[in-house]
Protein backbone atom coordinates (compact mmCIF):
# COMPACT_ATOMS: atom_id res chain seq x y z
CA UNK A 1 0.00 0.00 0.00
CA UNK A 2 1.22 3.49 -0.75
CA UNK A 3 2.31 5.61 2.18
CA UNK A 4 0.69 8.90 1.25
CA UNK A 5 -2.12 9.31 -1.17
CA UNK A 6 -3.51 12.65 -2.26
CA UNK A 7 -6.61 12.68 -4.45
CA UNK A 8 -7.97 15.73 -6.32
CA UNK A 9 -6.75 18.18 -3.70
CA UNK A 10 -8.08 21.70 -4.22
CA UNK A 11 -7.61 24.72 -2.01
CA UNK A 12 -8.93 28.25 -2.29
CA UNK A 13 -7.74 31.31 -0.40
CA UNK A 14 -10.93 33.36 -0.74
CA UNK A 15 -11.22 33.72 -4.52
CA UNK A 16 -7.66 32.66 -5.24
CA UNK A 17 -7.22 29.10 -6.42
CA UNK A 18 -3.94 28.13 -4.79
CA UNK A 19 -3.99 24.42 -5.54
CA UNK A 20 -6.17 22.71 -8.13
CA UNK A 21 -6.80 19.01 -8.57
CA UNK A 22 -3.48 17.98 -7.12
CA UNK A 23 -2.71 14.25 -7.10
CA UNK A 24 0.26 12.51 -5.57
CA UNK A 25 1.11 9.02 -4.44
CA UNK A 26 4.21 8.32 -2.40
CA UNK A 27 5.45 4.81 -1.73
CA UNK A 28 7.65 3.80 1.14
CA UNK A 29 11.28 4.79 0.71
CA UNK A 30 10.79 7.13 -2.23
CA UNK A 31 12.51 10.47 -2.68
CA UNK A 32 10.16 12.73 -4.59
CA UNK A 33 10.45 16.37 -5.59
CA UNK A 34 7.90 19.14 -5.95
CA UNK A 35 9.01 22.13 -7.98
CA UNK A 36 7.51 25.14 -9.65
CA UNK A 37 7.95 28.89 -10.00
CA UNK A 38 7.32 31.20 -7.05
CA UNK A 39 3.69 31.26 -5.96
CA UNK A 40 2.88 27.98 -7.69
CA UNK A 41 1.30 26.55 -4.54
CA UNK A 42 4.04 24.19 -3.43
CA UNK A 43 4.16 25.30 0.19
CA UNK A 44 0.36 25.35 0.27
CA UNK A 45 0.40 21.65 -0.59
CA UNK A 46 2.76 21.01 2.32
CA UNK A 47 0.62 23.12 4.62
CA UNK A 48 -2.41 21.08 3.61
CA UNK A 49 -0.62 17.80 4.21
CA UNK A 50 0.69 18.88 7.62
CA UNK A 51 -2.82 19.88 8.69
CA UNK A 52 -2.12 23.58 8.91
CA UNK A 53 -4.85 24.31 6.34
CA UNK A 54 -7.97 22.26 5.68
CA UNK A 55 -8.47 21.70 1.94
CA UNK A 56 -11.53 23.01 0.14
CA UNK A 57 -11.81 19.68 -1.62
CA UNK A 58 -9.98 16.41 -1.94
CA UNK A 59 -8.67 13.56 0.11
CA UNK A 60 -5.35 12.97 1.87
CA UNK A 61 -4.66 9.56 3.36
CA UNK A 62 -1.64 8.23 5.22
CA UNK A 63 -1.40 4.44 5.04
CA UNK A 64 -5.09 4.29 4.20
CA UNK A 65 -6.21 6.56 7.02
CA UNK A 66 -7.61 9.99 6.24
CA UNK A 67 -5.79 12.88 7.91
CA UNK A 68 -8.39 15.49 7.02
CA UNK A 69 -9.84 17.33 10.00
CA UNK A 70 -6.89 16.49 12.21
CA UNK A 71 -4.98 19.27 13.95
CA UNK A 72 -1.29 19.64 12.98
CA UNK A 73 0.07 17.95 16.11
CA UNK A 74 -2.19 14.97 15.46
CA UNK A 75 -0.92 14.71 11.89
CA UNK A 76 2.61 14.81 13.28
CA UNK A 77 1.77 12.04 15.71
CA UNK A 78 0.63 9.92 12.75
CA UNK A 79 4.09 10.20 11.25
CA UNK A 80 4.42 13.26 9.05
CA UNK A 81 7.19 15.67 10.03
CA UNK A 82 8.31 18.76 8.16
CA UNK A 83 10.75 21.63 8.02
CA UNK A 84 9.97 25.20 7.06
CA UNK A 85 11.00 27.41 4.19
CA UNK A 86 12.04 30.16 6.58
CA UNK A 87 13.71 28.43 9.51
CA UNK A 88 11.38 28.22 12.49
CA UNK A 89 13.44 27.00 15.40
CA UNK A 90 12.61 27.93 18.98
CA UNK A 91 15.23 30.56 19.57
CA UNK A 92 15.06 31.01 23.33
CA UNK A 93 15.40 27.26 23.91
CA UNK A 94 18.72 25.50 23.56
CA UNK A 95 19.60 23.27 20.62
CA UNK A 96 19.15 20.32 22.95
CA UNK A 97 15.70 21.46 24.09
CA UNK A 98 14.67 22.00 20.49
CA UNK A 99 15.39 18.33 19.84
CA UNK A 100 13.61 17.24 23.04
CA UNK A 101 10.41 19.22 22.60
CA UNK A 102 9.77 17.89 19.12
CA UNK A 103 9.08 14.57 20.88
CA UNK A 104 6.24 16.16 22.82
CA UNK A 105 3.61 13.86 21.32
CA UNK A 106 5.45 10.80 22.65
CA UNK A 107 5.27 11.91 26.27
CA UNK A 108 3.00 9.65 28.27
CA UNK A 109 2.71 11.79 31.36
CA UNK A 110 0.80 14.86 32.43
CA UNK A 111 1.02 17.69 34.92
CA UNK A 112 0.71 15.49 38.00
CA UNK A 113 3.57 13.22 36.96
CA UNK A 114 5.67 16.26 36.08
CA UNK A 115 5.23 17.76 39.54
CA UNK A 116 5.74 14.50 41.41
CA UNK A 117 8.64 13.37 39.19
CA UNK A 118 7.14 9.90 39.20
CA UNK A 119 8.76 6.87 37.66
CA UNK A 120 6.74 7.25 34.50
CA UNK A 121 8.02 10.82 34.22
CA UNK A 122 11.64 9.77 34.67
CA UNK A 123 11.39 6.94 32.15
CA UNK A 124 9.80 9.16 29.55
CA UNK A 125 12.25 11.94 30.15
CA UNK A 126 15.18 9.56 29.85
CA UNK A 127 13.87 8.24 26.56
CA UNK A 128 13.44 11.76 25.18
CA UNK A 129 16.92 12.76 26.30
CA UNK A 130 18.45 9.62 24.80
CA UNK A 131 16.84 10.27 21.44
CA UNK A 132 17.95 13.91 21.51
CA UNK A 133 21.50 12.90 22.39
CA UNK A 134 21.65 10.38 19.55
CA UNK A 135 20.39 13.09 17.22
CA UNK A 136 23.07 15.50 18.46
CA UNK A 137 25.69 12.94 17.50
CA UNK A 138 24.12 12.20 14.15
CA UNK A 139 23.92 15.90 13.33
CA UNK A 140 27.40 16.47 14.71
CA UNK A 141 26.02 19.26 16.88
CA UNK A 142 26.99 18.00 20.33
CA UNK A 143 29.38 20.87 20.68
CA UNK A 144 26.46 23.30 20.31
CA UNK A 145 23.99 21.41 22.54
CA UNK A 146 23.61 24.23 25.07
CA UNK A 147 23.78 27.01 22.48
CA UNK A 148 20.74 28.93 21.28
CA UNK A 149 19.80 28.20 17.66
CA UNK A 150 19.98 31.84 16.62
CA UNK A 151 23.70 31.84 17.42
CA UNK A 152 24.36 28.98 15.02
CA UNK A 153 25.56 29.51 11.45
CA UNK A 154 22.82 29.28 8.86
CA UNK A 155 23.79 25.88 7.52
CA UNK A 156 23.74 24.39 11.01
CA UNK A 157 20.34 25.90 11.70
CA UNK A 158 19.02 24.10 8.62
CA UNK A 159 20.64 20.91 9.81
CA UNK A 160 19.13 21.32 13.26
CA UNK A 161 15.70 21.85 11.78
CA UNK A 162 15.95 18.58 9.88
CA UNK A 163 17.19 16.92 13.06
CA UNK A 164 14.26 18.29 15.01
CA UNK A 165 11.90 16.77 12.46
CA UNK A 166 13.76 13.43 12.59
CA UNK A 167 13.40 13.31 16.39
CA UNK A 168 9.69 12.74 15.85
CA UNK A 169 10.49 9.42 14.17
CA UNK A 170 8.33 10.20 11.14
CA UNK A 171 7.45 7.87 8.30
CA UNK A 172 7.26 10.77 5.88
CA UNK A 173 9.53 13.81 5.95
CA UNK A 174 8.53 16.97 4.14
CA UNK A 175 11.42 19.32 3.38
CA UNK A 176 10.45 22.82 2.33
CA UNK A 177 13.40 24.29 0.41
CA UNK A 178 16.17 22.72 2.49
CA UNK A 179 18.88 24.31 0.33
CA UNK A 180 17.52 27.86 0.45
CA UNK A 181 20.29 30.32 1.26
CA UNK A 182 23.07 27.74 1.17
CA UNK A 183 26.36 28.18 -0.67
CA UNK A 184 27.43 25.59 -3.30
CA UNK A 185 29.60 23.70 -0.83
CA UNK A 186 26.78 23.40 1.66
CA UNK A 187 24.41 22.31 -1.11
CA UNK A 188 26.74 19.43 -2.04
CA UNK A 189 26.82 18.35 1.56
CA UNK A 190 23.04 18.60 1.84
CA UNK A 191 22.57 16.34 -1.22
CA UNK A 192 24.70 13.70 0.45
CA UNK A 193 22.90 14.10 3.77
CA UNK A 194 19.38 13.82 2.37
CA UNK A 195 20.17 10.54 0.64
CA UNK A 196 21.86 9.25 3.77
CA UNK A 197 18.92 10.24 5.98
CA UNK A 198 16.47 8.43 3.70
CA UNK A 199 18.50 5.21 3.87
CA UNK A 200 19.44 5.44 7.53
CA UNK A 201 16.00 6.27 8.90
CA UNK A 202 14.10 4.31 6.22
CA UNK A 203 12.02 7.34 5.42
CA UNK A 204 10.03 8.64 2.55
CA UNK A 205 11.14 12.14 1.67
CA UNK A 206 9.14 14.67 -0.27
CA UNK A 207 10.89 17.95 -0.95
CA UNK A 208 10.27 21.36 -2.42
CA UNK A 209 13.36 22.91 -3.89
CA UNK A 210 14.48 25.67 -6.24
CA UNK A 211 18.06 24.49 -6.61
CA UNK A 212 17.83 22.35 -9.73
CA UNK A 213 21.07 20.66 -8.82
CA UNK A 214 19.50 19.25 -5.67
CA UNK A 215 16.26 18.20 -7.32
CA UNK A 216 17.81 16.65 -10.43
CA UNK A 217 20.43 14.85 -8.39
CA UNK A 218 18.43 13.15 -5.70
CA UNK A 219 14.78 12.95 -6.68
CA UNK A 220 13.50 9.82 -8.29
CA UNK A 221 10.31 11.48 -9.44
CA UNK A 222 9.40 15.12 -9.81
CA UNK A 223 6.10 16.92 -10.05
CA UNK A 224 5.93 20.46 -11.42
CA UNK A 225 3.30 22.93 -10.32
CA UNK A 226 2.40 26.22 -11.95
CA UNK A 227 -0.43 28.44 -10.70
CA UNK A 228 -1.72 25.59 -8.59
CA UNK A 229 -1.97 23.13 -11.46
CA UNK A 230 0.22 20.17 -12.23
CA UNK A 231 1.98 20.79 -15.54
CA UNK A 232 4.37 17.87 -15.63
CA UNK A 233 5.56 14.84 -13.75
CA UNK A 234 8.14 12.13 -14.20
CA UNK A 235 11.81 11.30 -13.67
CA UNK A 236 14.35 14.16 -13.74
CA UNK A 237 15.52 13.39 -17.28
CA UNK A 238 11.98 13.83 -18.62
CA UNK A 239 11.25 16.96 -16.61
CA UNK A 240 14.43 18.61 -17.83
CA UNK A 241 13.27 18.32 -21.46
CA UNK A 242 9.62 19.18 -20.87
CA UNK A 243 8.53 22.22 -22.88
CA UNK A 244 5.85 23.38 -20.47
CA UNK A 245 8.30 23.29 -17.57
CA UNK A 246 10.84 25.35 -19.44
CA UNK A 247 8.08 27.73 -20.42
CA UNK A 248 6.89 28.10 -16.84
CA UNK A 249 10.38 28.77 -15.58
CA UNK A 250 11.88 30.82 -18.43
CA UNK A 251 8.84 32.30 -20.11
CA UNK A 252 7.45 31.87 -23.61
CA UNK A 253 9.92 31.51 -26.45
CA UNK A 254 7.88 33.70 -28.76
CA UNK A 255 7.59 36.52 -26.30
CA UNK A 256 11.29 36.22 -25.56
CA UNK A 257 12.29 36.69 -29.18
CA UNK A 258 9.53 39.06 -30.18
Amino acid at each position, binding site marked *: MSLLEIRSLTHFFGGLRAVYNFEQTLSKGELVGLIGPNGAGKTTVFNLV*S*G*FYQPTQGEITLVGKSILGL*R*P*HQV*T*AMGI*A*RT*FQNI*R*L*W*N*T*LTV*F*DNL*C*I*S*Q*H*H*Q*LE*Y*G*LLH*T*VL*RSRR*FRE*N*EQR*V*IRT*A*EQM*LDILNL*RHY*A*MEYPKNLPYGLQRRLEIG*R*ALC*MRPALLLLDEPAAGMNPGEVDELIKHIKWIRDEFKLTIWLIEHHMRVVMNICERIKVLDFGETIAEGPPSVIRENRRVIQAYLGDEETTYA
Partner: protein
Amino acid sequence: MRRFTSAASYSLLCILLIAAAHGDWINAYIQIVIMFIGINIILSSSLNLINGYMGEFSVGHAGFMAVGAYITSVLNVWLFTSSQVFGPALLSPSSAILLFPVTLLAGGVGAALAGLLVAVPSFRTRGDYLAIITLAVNYIVKSSIENMQVIGGARGFMGMRGVVNSMQDVVNLPWTLVWVCTCVGATIWILYRFVNSTYGKGIIAIRDDEIAAEIMSVDTQRMKMIAFMLSSGLAGIAGGLFAHVLGYINPGTFTIMKSTEVLVMVYLGGMGSLSGSVISAIGLTLILELFRPLQVAKWVIVPLLLILLMLFRPEGILGNRELTDVFPRLRRWFSLQERQP
Protein backbone atom coordinates in the same frame (compact mmCIF):
# COMPACT_ATOMS: atom_id res chain seq x y z
CA MET B 1 22.33 14.93 49.76
CA ARG B 2 22.50 18.06 47.63
CA ARG B 3 19.11 17.11 46.29
CA PHE B 4 17.53 18.31 49.48
CA THR B 5 19.50 21.46 50.24
CA SER B 6 17.01 23.82 48.66
CA ALA B 7 14.01 22.16 50.31
CA ALA B 8 15.84 21.91 53.65
CA SER B 9 17.02 25.51 53.70
CA TYR B 10 13.57 26.75 52.77
CA SER B 11 11.96 24.66 55.53
CA LEU B 12 14.51 25.97 57.99
CA LEU B 13 13.70 29.55 57.00
CA CYS B 14 9.99 28.86 57.43
CA ILE B 15 10.46 27.24 60.82
CA LEU B 16 12.54 30.21 61.97
CA LEU B 17 9.89 32.65 60.75
CA ILE B 18 7.08 30.71 62.39
CA ALA B 19 9.02 30.37 65.62
CA ALA B 20 9.80 34.09 65.58
CA ALA B 21 6.15 34.90 65.01
CA HIS B 22 5.02 32.42 67.63
CA GLY B 23 7.42 33.74 70.25
CA ASP B 24 6.44 37.35 69.44
CA TRP B 25 10.02 38.21 68.52
CA ILE B 26 8.69 39.99 65.48
CA ASN B 27 5.67 42.22 65.83
CA ALA B 28 2.35 41.81 64.05
CA TYR B 29 3.20 44.45 61.45
CA ILE B 30 6.36 42.67 60.32
CA GLN B 31 4.45 39.37 60.28
CA ILE B 32 1.86 40.86 57.96
CA VAL B 33 4.55 42.27 55.67
CA ILE B 34 6.20 38.83 55.53
CA MET B 35 2.87 37.22 54.66
CA PHE B 36 2.23 39.80 51.94
CA ILE B 37 5.66 39.07 50.54
CA GLY B 38 4.73 35.39 50.39
CA ILE B 39 1.40 36.08 48.72
CA ASN B 40 3.09 38.37 46.20
CA ILE B 41 5.64 35.66 45.43
CA ILE B 42 2.82 33.26 44.57
CA LEU B 43 1.06 35.87 42.45
CA SER B 44 4.10 37.03 40.52
CA SER B 45 5.57 33.60 39.87
CA SER B 46 2.21 32.22 38.72
CA LEU B 47 1.64 35.19 36.42
CA ASN B 48 5.16 34.68 35.10
CA LEU B 49 4.01 31.33 33.74
CA ILE B 50 1.64 33.17 31.37
CA ASN B 51 3.43 36.44 30.70
CA GLY B 52 6.97 35.19 30.89
CA TYR B 53 7.08 31.56 29.85
CA MET B 54 4.11 31.46 27.48
CA GLY B 55 4.53 35.01 26.18
CA GLU B 56 0.89 36.03 26.45
CA PHE B 57 -0.04 39.30 28.07
CA SER B 58 -2.49 38.66 30.90
CA VAL B 59 -3.60 41.75 32.80
CA GLY B 60 -6.39 40.18 34.82
CA HIS B 61 -4.57 38.19 37.47
CA ALA B 62 -6.42 39.93 40.32
CA GLY B 63 -9.70 38.56 38.96
CA PHE B 64 -8.60 34.98 39.59
CA MET B 65 -7.25 36.02 42.96
CA ALA B 66 -10.71 37.38 43.78
CA VAL B 67 -12.41 34.12 42.80
CA GLY B 68 -10.09 32.17 45.10
CA ALA B 69 -10.38 34.68 47.91
CA TYR B 70 -14.18 34.66 47.88
CA ILE B 71 -14.61 30.90 47.51
CA THR B 72 -12.18 30.14 50.35
CA SER B 73 -13.59 32.84 52.62
CA VAL B 74 -17.22 31.96 52.04
CA LEU B 75 -16.55 28.26 52.58
CA ASN B 76 -14.65 28.88 55.78
CA VAL B 77 -17.10 31.36 57.26
CA TRP B 78 -20.05 29.17 56.28
CA LEU B 79 -18.53 25.97 57.67
CA PHE B 80 -16.67 27.06 60.74
CA THR B 81 -18.12 30.26 62.20
CA SER B 82 -21.50 31.53 63.26
CA SER B 83 -22.30 34.52 61.12
CA GLN B 84 -25.37 36.63 60.41
CA VAL B 85 -25.27 35.67 56.76
CA PHE B 86 -24.98 31.91 56.96
CA GLY B 87 -26.29 31.24 60.46
CA PRO B 88 -24.58 28.90 62.92
CA ALA B 89 -21.45 26.97 61.97
CA LEU B 90 -22.08 23.80 60.00
CA LEU B 91 -19.10 21.95 61.40
CA SER B 92 -17.38 22.34 64.68
CA PRO B 93 -15.05 25.39 64.55
CA SER B 94 -12.14 23.25 65.70
CA SER B 95 -12.24 21.19 62.50
CA ALA B 96 -11.11 24.32 60.62
CA ILE B 97 -7.55 23.40 61.44
CA LEU B 98 -7.85 20.26 59.30
CA LEU B 99 -10.14 21.54 56.60
CA PHE B 100 -8.53 24.93 55.99
CA PRO B 101 -6.14 23.56 53.34
CA VAL B 102 -9.10 21.87 51.66
CA THR B 103 -10.98 25.15 51.41
CA LEU B 104 -7.82 26.83 50.16
CA LEU B 105 -7.55 24.18 47.47
CA ALA B 106 -11.24 24.61 46.63
CA GLY B 107 -10.58 28.30 46.06
CA GLY B 108 -7.70 27.35 43.78
CA VAL B 109 -9.87 24.93 41.80
CA GLY B 110 -12.60 27.56 41.47
CA ALA B 111 -10.08 30.09 40.20
CA ALA B 112 -8.65 27.51 37.79
CA LEU B 113 -12.13 26.98 36.36
CA ALA B 114 -12.48 30.75 36.01
CA GLY B 115 -9.16 30.56 34.15
CA LEU B 116 -10.99 28.67 31.43
CA LEU B 117 -12.68 31.96 30.59
CA VAL B 118 -9.31 33.08 29.29
CA ALA B 119 -7.92 29.72 28.20
CA VAL B 120 -10.67 28.94 25.70
CA PRO B 121 -10.48 32.28 23.84
CA SER B 122 -6.69 31.89 23.80
CA PHE B 123 -7.08 29.02 21.32
CA ARG B 124 -8.22 31.47 18.69
CA THR B 125 -6.58 34.74 19.57
CA ARG B 126 -3.39 35.99 21.14
CA GLY B 127 -1.32 39.05 21.93
CA ASP B 128 -3.11 42.36 22.44
CA TYR B 129 -6.51 40.83 21.75
CA LEU B 130 -6.09 38.22 24.43
CA ALA B 131 -4.87 40.93 26.82
CA ILE B 132 -8.20 42.71 26.37
CA ILE B 133 -10.03 39.46 27.12
CA THR B 134 -8.09 39.01 30.37
CA LEU B 135 -8.96 42.59 31.29
CA ALA B 136 -12.62 41.86 30.58
CA VAL B 137 -12.50 38.73 32.74
CA ASN B 138 -11.09 40.77 35.59
CA TYR B 139 -14.03 43.19 35.31
CA ILE B 140 -16.57 40.38 34.95
CA VAL B 141 -15.35 38.80 38.20
CA LYS B 142 -15.26 42.08 40.08
CA SER B 143 -18.72 43.20 38.91
CA SER B 144 -20.29 39.79 39.59
CA ILE B 145 -19.04 39.84 43.16
CA GLU B 146 -20.20 43.43 43.61
CA ASN B 147 -23.69 42.36 42.62
CA MET B 148 -23.90 39.28 44.82
CA GLN B 149 -25.61 40.63 47.90
CA VAL B 150 -25.39 37.27 49.73
CA ILE B 151 -21.65 37.65 50.11
CA GLY B 152 -21.75 41.34 50.89
CA GLY B 153 -21.65 42.84 47.42
CA ALA B 154 -19.60 46.02 47.21
CA ARG B 155 -19.50 46.28 51.00
CA GLY B 156 -17.14 43.35 51.17
CA PHE B 157 -17.03 40.16 53.17
CA MET B 158 -15.61 39.51 56.61
CA GLY B 159 -15.45 36.93 59.36
CA MET B 160 -12.23 35.20 58.37
CA ARG B 161 -10.62 36.39 61.61
CA GLY B 162 -12.93 34.01 63.42
CA VAL B 163 -11.72 31.09 61.34
CA VAL B 164 -8.08 31.91 62.03
CA ASN B 165 -8.86 32.33 65.73
CA SER B 166 -10.63 28.98 65.94
CA MET B 167 -7.57 27.34 64.35
CA GLN B 168 -5.36 29.05 66.91
CA ASP B 169 -7.62 27.86 69.71
CA VAL B 170 -6.84 24.24 68.84
CA VAL B 171 -3.10 24.58 68.31
CA ASN B 172 -1.56 27.90 69.16
CA LEU B 173 0.51 28.65 66.07
CA PRO B 174 0.46 31.59 63.63
CA TRP B 175 -1.61 29.54 61.17
CA THR B 176 -1.87 32.09 58.40
CA LEU B 177 1.92 32.36 58.29
CA VAL B 178 2.23 28.56 58.30
CA TRP B 179 -0.04 28.28 55.28
CA VAL B 180 1.58 31.17 53.45
CA CYS B 181 4.97 29.49 53.89
CA THR B 182 3.61 26.12 52.73
CA CYS B 183 1.88 27.56 49.68
CA VAL B 184 4.89 29.62 48.60
CA GLY B 185 7.05 26.51 48.80
CA ALA B 186 4.51 24.43 46.90
CA THR B 187 4.07 27.08 44.21
CA ILE B 188 7.77 27.39 43.48
CA TRP B 189 8.16 23.62 43.62
CA ILE B 190 5.33 23.02 41.14
CA LEU B 191 6.33 25.78 38.75
CA TYR B 192 10.01 24.92 38.83
CA ARG B 193 9.36 21.30 38.02
CA PHE B 194 6.83 22.19 35.37
CA VAL B 195 9.02 24.60 33.40
CA ASN B 196 12.03 22.30 33.67
CA SER B 197 10.37 19.31 32.05
CA THR B 198 10.03 18.52 28.35
CA TYR B 199 6.29 18.68 28.92
CA GLY B 200 6.34 22.17 30.43
CA LYS B 201 8.86 23.50 27.96
CA GLY B 202 6.16 23.03 25.36
CA ILE B 203 4.76 26.37 26.55
CA ILE B 204 8.11 28.06 25.92
CA ALA B 205 7.99 26.63 22.41
CA ILE B 206 4.56 28.25 22.05
CA ARG B 207 6.06 31.60 23.04
CA ASP B 208 8.90 31.30 20.56
CA ASP B 209 6.85 30.12 17.59
CA GLU B 210 3.33 28.89 18.08
CA ILE B 211 2.90 27.56 14.54
CA ALA B 212 6.15 25.64 14.70
CA ALA B 213 5.14 24.28 18.12
CA GLU B 214 1.81 23.00 16.82
CA ILE B 215 3.33 21.42 13.72
CA MET B 216 6.26 20.05 15.72
CA SER B 217 3.96 17.88 17.84
CA VAL B 218 3.03 20.16 20.76
CA ASP B 219 -0.70 20.10 21.52
CA THR B 220 -0.87 23.88 21.86
CA GLN B 221 -4.51 24.03 22.98
CA ARG B 222 -3.91 21.56 25.76
CA MET B 223 -0.73 23.28 26.90
CA LYS B 224 -2.44 26.69 26.90
CA MET B 225 -5.29 25.30 28.94
CA ILE B 226 -2.89 23.78 31.47
CA ALA B 227 -0.83 26.98 31.71
CA PHE B 228 -3.85 29.23 32.20
CA MET B 229 -5.54 26.92 34.68
CA LEU B 230 -2.37 26.35 36.70
CA SER B 231 -1.58 30.04 36.79
CA SER B 232 -5.08 31.17 37.77
CA GLY B 233 -5.43 28.31 40.25
CA LEU B 234 -2.29 29.42 42.07
CA ALA B 235 -3.58 33.00 42.01
CA GLY B 236 -6.78 31.72 43.60
CA ILE B 237 -4.81 30.11 46.43
CA ALA B 238 -2.93 33.37 46.91
CA GLY B 239 -6.31 35.11 47.09
CA GLY B 240 -7.54 32.71 49.78
CA LEU B 241 -4.45 33.39 51.86
CA PHE B 242 -4.77 37.13 51.27
CA ALA B 243 -8.34 37.07 52.58
CA HIS B 244 -7.29 35.30 55.76
CA VAL B 245 -4.31 37.54 56.40
CA LEU B 246 -6.45 40.67 56.14
CA GLY B 247 -9.64 39.19 57.61
CA TYR B 248 -11.69 41.37 55.28
CA ILE B 249 -12.03 41.52 51.51
CA ASN B 250 -14.04 43.67 49.14
CA PRO B 251 -14.28 43.60 45.37
CA GLY B 252 -12.52 46.97 45.16
CA THR B 253 -9.27 45.27 46.19
CA PHE B 254 -9.19 43.08 43.10
CA THR B 255 -9.21 45.66 40.34
CA ILE B 256 -6.87 46.30 37.47
CA MET B 257 -4.66 48.17 40.00
CA LYS B 258 -3.91 44.94 41.82
CA SER B 259 -3.31 43.13 38.52
CA THR B 260 -0.90 45.87 37.49
CA GLU B 261 0.99 45.55 40.74
CA VAL B 262 1.59 41.87 40.02
CA LEU B 263 2.43 42.64 36.41
CA VAL B 264 5.07 45.12 37.56
CA MET B 265 6.63 42.44 39.76
CA VAL B 266 6.85 40.02 36.83
CA TYR B 267 8.48 42.54 34.50
CA LEU B 268 10.74 43.87 37.24
CA GLY B 269 12.08 40.42 38.01
CA GLY B 270 12.42 39.33 34.43
CA MET B 271 10.11 37.42 32.17
CA GLY B 272 10.63 33.71 32.25
CA SER B 273 12.71 33.77 35.43
CA LEU B 274 11.25 32.17 38.54
CA SER B 275 13.96 33.46 40.85
CA GLY B 276 13.50 36.90 39.29
CA SER B 277 9.82 36.85 40.21
CA VAL B 278 10.64 35.85 43.78
CA ILE B 279 13.30 38.54 44.14
CA SER B 280 11.12 41.29 42.70
CA ALA B 281 8.11 40.25 44.80
CA ILE B 282 10.26 40.54 47.92
CA GLY B 283 11.92 43.75 46.77
CA LEU B 284 8.85 45.60 45.60
CA THR B 285 6.77 44.68 48.66
CA LEU B 286 9.58 45.87 50.93
CA ILE B 287 10.14 49.09 48.99
CA LEU B 288 6.44 49.91 49.08
CA GLU B 289 6.42 49.36 52.84
CA LEU B 290 9.63 51.31 53.46
CA PHE B 291 8.31 54.28 51.52
CA ARG B 292 5.05 54.31 53.42
CA PRO B 293 6.10 57.32 55.53
CA LEU B 294 6.39 59.33 52.31
CA GLN B 295 2.61 58.94 51.90
CA VAL B 296 1.41 60.25 48.53
CA ALA B 297 4.95 60.92 47.33
CA LYS B 298 5.43 57.14 47.37
CA TRP B 299 3.35 56.86 44.24
CA VAL B 300 5.70 59.27 42.51
CA ILE B 301 8.95 57.74 43.66
CA VAL B 302 8.14 54.06 43.12
CA PRO B 303 6.96 54.52 39.51
CA LEU B 304 10.01 56.69 38.92
CA LEU B 305 12.21 53.81 40.07
CA LEU B 306 10.36 51.63 37.59
CA ILE B 307 10.98 54.07 34.74
CA LEU B 308 14.67 54.14 35.59
CA LEU B 309 14.84 50.36 35.74
CA MET B 310 13.08 49.97 32.41
CA LEU B 311 15.46 52.53 30.86
CA PHE B 312 18.63 50.90 32.09
CA ARG B 313 17.55 47.29 32.37
CA PRO B 314 14.52 46.69 30.18
CA GLU B 315 14.77 42.91 30.53
CA GLY B 316 14.18 43.13 34.30
CA ILE B 317 16.53 42.27 37.13
CA LEU B 318 17.38 38.79 35.90
CA GLY B 319 16.12 38.79 32.32
CA ASN B 320 15.14 35.27 31.41
CA ARG B 321 17.97 33.77 33.42
CA GLU B 322 17.74 32.17 36.83
CA LEU B 323 19.77 33.09 39.87
CA THR B 324 21.95 30.03 39.32
CA ASP B 325 22.86 31.27 35.83
CA VAL B 326 24.05 34.57 37.24
CA PHE B 327 25.89 33.00 40.17
CA PRO B 328 27.00 29.56 38.95
CA ARG B 329 28.56 28.90 42.34
CA LEU B 330 25.10 28.44 43.77
CA ARG B 331 24.93 25.21 41.80
CA ARG B 332 27.43 23.73 44.17
CA TRP B 333 24.86 23.96 46.95
CA PHE B 334 21.67 23.33 45.10
CA SER B 335 21.49 20.48 42.69
CA LEU B 336 19.12 21.50 39.95
CA GLN B 337 16.86 19.20 38.05
CA GLU B 338 17.97 20.55 34.72
CA ARG B 339 18.47 18.34 31.76
CA GLN B 340 21.87 18.40 30.18
CA PRO B 341 23.19 16.13 27.50
